[in-house]
């Protein structure tokens, strides 16, 4: 079988409270600790392993530690140095049913950038499963405008159905590797 290269990386999961950050990734990560650590400690770490095909026929396994950060702005300002340090990517999550959560993402991402500089960002617009049940007040245009500043692709996601969550990880992983000069098959 092809030779396997490994790389460890750290990404931050940010966004306002109750946008569904923890639920969004729950089924897609290895999760050894309970969710209460997020509210008591301010963060919880879980892990996702992704295997990429490389052009030289080797494979690359990326071990991603995902820092799920509590969605309180005051907390962000308090502990951002510690929790954002060394992050290689940002998963920014907004709630499709609350426009304000999209606008707040700008501050969240800027907060990360202030600590680690500009790193790849992917937007997840969560709760797409509710689109037929509640009035949606924003869409592609507003999301595109919000994410364009960070050159961030965006995906409509659902913690309920798992829609696009796998793609989210794949895309962020590819962007992180590309930033390090590593090309993989997408």
């Amino acid at each position, binding site marked *: *079988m*092809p030779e396997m*290269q*490994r*790389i*460890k*990386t*750290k990404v931050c999961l940010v966004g306002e409270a109750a946008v569904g950050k923890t639920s969004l990734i729950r089924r897609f990560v*290895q*999760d*050894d*600790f309970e969710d209460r*650590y997020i509210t008591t*400690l*301010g*963060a*919880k*770490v*879980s*892990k996702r392993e992704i295997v990429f*095909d490389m052009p030289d*026929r080797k494979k690359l396994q990326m*071990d991603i*530690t995902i*820092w799920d950060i509590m969605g309180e702005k005051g907390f962000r300002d*308090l*502990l951002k140095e*510690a*929790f954002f*340090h*060394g*992050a*290689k990517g940002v998963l920014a999550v907004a709630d499709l049913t609350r426009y304000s959560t999209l606008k707040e993402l700008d501050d969240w991402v800027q907060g990360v950038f202030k600590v680690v500089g500009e790193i790849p960002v992917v937007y997840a617009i969560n709760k797409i499963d509710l689109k*037929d*049940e509640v009035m949606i007040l924003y869409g592609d245009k507003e999301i595109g405008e919000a994410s364009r500043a960070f050159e961030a692709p965006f995906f409509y996601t659902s913690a309920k159905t798992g829609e696009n969550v796998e793609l989210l990880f794949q895309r962020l992983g590819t962007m992180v590797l590309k930033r*390090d000069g590593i090309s993989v*098959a997408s």
Partner: protein
Amino acid sequence: MEGSWAGSRGKWGGMAVLVQRPSRAHRFDAIGLFALLAVSLLLAFLTPPVRGDLPTEIENRDASRTVTWTMGTAAGLAVQGVDLAGGNASLPWTAHNLSWDRPGEFAANGSLDPTLTMGAAGIALRADTANHIVDGDFVSGTPWTFEPSAHGNVSAAWDTGTATAVFRHDSPKTESSWDHLDVNAGVWAGVNGVAWTNTTKPHEGTGMLGLNFSLGPGPGAWAGVQHLAPVNWSSDRMVVWVLPSNSSLPLTFNVTAYVGATLYGTAPRALVAGWQEVSVDLTELGPVRDALISLTLRVNGQGIPSGTVYVDDLRLGNAKQFEETARVRQSVVKANATSPALGSGVVRVNWSTPTATGIVRVIGIVNVTSTSGSILRTFSAAPGSGWRPFFADVSATTALPGLYEVSVGIDVIADNTSVSSVEARIDDVSLVFPNRHNGTYLSNAVALGTASEFLGVTWAFDASGPTTLWAALRTGNDSSPGSPTWSAWQFWTAAGTYAATLPSASFLQARVDLTTTNASASPNLAAMAVATRHRSMQSGSVASGVFTIPAAELATFRNWRILEARSRTPAGTSISFAIGDGTYWKPVGSDGNITDTNSTMIRWSATLATTNGLVTPTLERVDLVYEYLGLPARVELRWPGWPSPIVVPSGGVVRFTAVALDAGSHVISKEPNRFDWNTNDSHGQVGIDGSYRAGEAGDHIVNVTFVGTTLSATVHVRVLAAGTWIDAMIGYAPYWLAVLTLGAVGYTGYRFGIRRTSSIDDVFLISKDGRLMMHNTRRMRADRDADILSGMLTAILSFLKDADPEENGELRRFEVGGKTTLLERGPHAYLVAVYSGKVPRRAGKNLRRFMTSLETNFGDAFARWSGDPEDLQDLKAFTGRFVSPFRFRPPRRMNGRAS
């Protein structure tokens, strides 16, 4: 042609050389051609190669080659039940239309409220169609009661011949001639005009009375013919024919006369063109009319300079004046209550009035009466040909059960002196209580067979006037409508074809609400069609043609190694592979291993399948890798006890084996005589079979070279002096045996004691950002993932540091669950050691010393660490020394890969 490419004419034969200097113009042409070629080459370089689906073969670095098939086109592939599009093979979409165009299909797939009915045209609100009128078609004439009018002027009868009810009135004229107006001289005289007798085309008799007149422009102008003698007009009606002539309209006509000294006049009547019969009510001239003086027939108008009017055939009589109604009647018993809403009770009657002359008008009357009230509806029964219907809504009066009187009659109004004749008929009388109520059709959960996309819906229904129809659909993924997998209803209120925005699902439910505000009217549902599509549930396959190892490579071909595919298999989908040589197929395992295949002909097949109609597996590319015997790439040495260091007494023999390998580690040769053996042991020697006989004591090397190449391998050997060896082994045997025994006992005791009192379970080396750089554990299996644990530990330490700035990162020790954790921080990383049992007194110092040693040897590597564990591969062995139960002593600076 001044310049040419040599070809066969040139001195260099087939080589392209310019034999004659081209003209300037041709030089520019040549430059242009070169430029074009250059651009073409550049484009060819920059443009991706055209995608081809015949297999391509590339060389790998490890003595293997990869044969690749892509899915751009079907060339070279056998495709069955699979679409090739966008460079992928996938299962095709299959259209599925759910169509209910007969009411029975609705009923078979759902349930109708009792208020609904199913007919040939569709589903509608159920109506009570019973006619509560007995013998409405007058076949027997019973139980009808035929009632003439009050004074007998209008009769009512059953006409057995036509099976209708017939109403009639007939009466003779009551008028007689008073003056034919044939001879008028001395009888009538003109007033404000000239009266004369005209015998040309009188209306009656031999002549008629003419009046030439001129009317001034002011109001009240008139002219007339006056009777020269008093008259006795005691009758109440005068009738005369009048003809205006010479474009003298507008004019009115009336009669004036003196009774005593009082002038009376009748109401003016407007005249029209042509002969007209004017009837004058003489009672307007007063009650006593036996001596009317200066009786004048007037024409009134203004601004008519010249006009003529003729009068003829003046008659007197008493008018027939009455308004009477004849009826047919029957009683109706209504057993059930109905709604008072419009349309809940309706009387229908067909009527016809073939004749109606000499009367004022004829009116049709429908009357329904009960103790709770009465309702009367009328219609104009004007004469004409044919039957006409009349509907009377009697809902407001007929809601309650009880006894009702239903009558249909003809009312005749007469005020004439001429002959009168009326004939009116009625037939097909009905009284119905339709009493329609709103209802709902609800289908079952209709299984579509698999999850499907909804493309469109077509509704065919009629809902107009007081009726409405709401059609709705919803979708779900189980057979229990309303469960959480089901969507909300989507409604349509007008018939037509619509694009459906229903969520994709495997079940569908339809609902139709039929409503009306008129109990006799109903909407009608005719048909429904829903267009869906899903991925083919039949598995499809792609298979390659047979690939044969090229003849030039047959000699070195060894075996096939692996089948690899670039594909996507979302949940519910699968791709299974098989390989064969054209005569058989055998499945390929999930690891793609096909090393047991060494046929020089091979082909593959991929079977795509899904259990979810919304998703398909996609296959983009298939690689088959085969191995071949390549050129020698390296030489390896082996010896008994390999890879342990070689220590041999002087004179001892070590048997080496040399192996020449290609880049794929395939053995090219291990025959000793194909290797050239050497050693720097001046007293030792290596035979051609690889046997090394040790010479003098010391460190030496043994070298071997694969003959005909520069490939070689070298190994170090330590040769001990024979005497030392033997003395140590024999002369001091009692001592070293004793020392060995004591050492063994002591070591065992020491290890036993250490393990009883203390041991290091885990050592974590963690980067400052929380990524685990290295984990060394003596446990067989970790309780938690070390990467996650490292991150959480970093988060906790950060939290503690921020929660109490005074702590300033100095936490060095904490105890949890009977275990003690010591921490030591370095500039780039920190070290965590987890102890079980009693922690040795020197543990903290040991940890600091170890951290310092790590930073000394690996600090630069830590600072630049990209996350690749390979960059720190020497750390594990380094850390192993710390985890050992002996006190850590820092090594000399390493020269390993920690850089």
